[in-house]
């Protein structure tokens, strides 16, 4: 859906590595998790707890809660508000988030 205007390196930001569902992706320091995932071609962030229908970010400004993912074991984080960090483990979220993981 999206491509970067410039590669994630150079004057605007160092490259950061993180994993999404175990697969490594590269991001730009300063990216949000949602931005990094969109740039890496992820087009499903979660399925809903009600009907398990697929969702991806809708507003990217913290109001729609459709970009909820599990980050480093903590579920239902707003991917559009959390900045990427080196070594971060992101999981897309299926239905009702598993309690206590």
């Amino acid at each position, binding site marked *: 859906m999206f491509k970067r205007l410039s590669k994630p390196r150079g004057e605007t930001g160092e490259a950061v590595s993180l994993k999404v569902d175990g697969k490594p992706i590269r991001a730009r320091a300063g990216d949000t998790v949602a931005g990094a995932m969109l740039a890496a071609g992820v087009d499903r962030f979660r399925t809903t707890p009600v009907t398990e229908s697929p969702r991806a970010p809708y507003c*990217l400004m913290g109001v*729609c809660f459709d970009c909820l993912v599990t980050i480093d074991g903590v579920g239902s984080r707003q991917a559009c508000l959390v900045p990427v960090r080196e070594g971060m483990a992101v999981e897309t979220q299926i239905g009702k988030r598993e309690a206590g993981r």
Partner: protein
Amino acid sequence: MNASELQSSYELVVVGGGPAGLAAATLAAKAGVQTVLFDENPGVGGQIYRGITNTPVADRAILGEDYWAGAVLASEAEASGATIVNGATVWSLDPNRLVGVSIAGQARMVKTQRVIVATGSMERPFPIPGWTLPGVMTAGAAQTVLKAQGLVPTGRTIMAGCGPLLWLLAAQLLRAGAKIEAILDTAPRINWLKAAMHLPGFLLSPYWSKGLALLREVKAKAPVIAAHRVEAHGKDKLSEVVFATGAGERRMKADLLLLHHGVVPNVNLAMAAGVAHRWNSRQLCFEPVVDADFATSLRGIAVAGDGAGIAGGTAAAERGRIAAIAAVQALRPAASVMDVQTVRQSLAREEMGRAFLDALYQPAPSFRRPTGDTIACRCEEVTARQVRDTADLGCEGPNQMKAFLRCGMGPCQGRLCGLTVTELIAEQRRSTPDEVGYYRLRPPVKPITLAELASLPKTEAERKAVER
């Protein structure tokens, strides 16, 4: 900064780091008021100046000079002496001005004498068939990732809706090299007639020439088609946009559909605090009742910026200044501040063209009040039909509707369905949105984890109660 470094109280808490919040914090801090600004985004700027301190978009022409004006606000705030905390989510505010805030998973309660809520606006819900499919986003979302991360749509992109921001974004995306298959203009033609009476004011406003230039720029590079119905189709993600024009139904393959029909105040924090709100029949949204200084019905709590009614980014900064001057005068009567009359005059100039834009870009009822299986509440997946049927059965208000259908009870806490549900109930019951009212909002206005809440420091007596 982490939560444990916060003071237990500040003289002024500003919530939101957009133009209103930045201008307010700058003015207050410079006048010697001990000020903290909480902003939940990774950097300041709000939505309009998103990524202003670190955008990777190097070519200044792409985002335009109006965007770069935000850099001044950001650097002034930085130098003002205000404590600016990003990644800080304010999840509660009460009439006693106790502010619940979380930073990196740690929660704190902060007491303050004055609060300026500058939570800005959000895009009006755009409930069309298929709007929950991956691949359907708001236009603002695409703008956010362009500004903050330098992302540009690829594949077949269609935009739909109306309003000045739609044209601005179209221009920015086109300048950044995106290809737009079509722009579906959903503004009802009749709006021109309704707007005409406000034309004189608009002709004097700064929007007039800028707006026309944008329209020309966009229309030269992308086909603009008038549409009175828009649907997103696809199984697990968007594959096709179906729309109705005067000449019949059309279908276009698409990978990305960007929706926008105006912005509305982001009311959750102020409403949950108990600030009185009213329906604005021109802008078709709820807004806080404020006085000339943007003071609300709750003592010591002001709402500035677009959160107090939509007027745009430049006006938001002026409103922030006016609210901050009132705060300074209350907290530091001896401090010298700029003359509020000057600021009011600038604000009046900025607000001048608003009535015309509001009338011209008022979204058609069919795009605000969906029917059938179209989802009204995205979180709980409640359809328009369910809401309408329940209203027909006697449900008179959104709070009862919540109890019956769970609409508005998911994590977005009604942000994406509140206006829709109010308008649907009003239509079914032949009432008005003002009479129907809005959801009674409850804190936390942003979800917090149990661990985060448990991390709140407790008083000695209460700690003992826990330990038994």
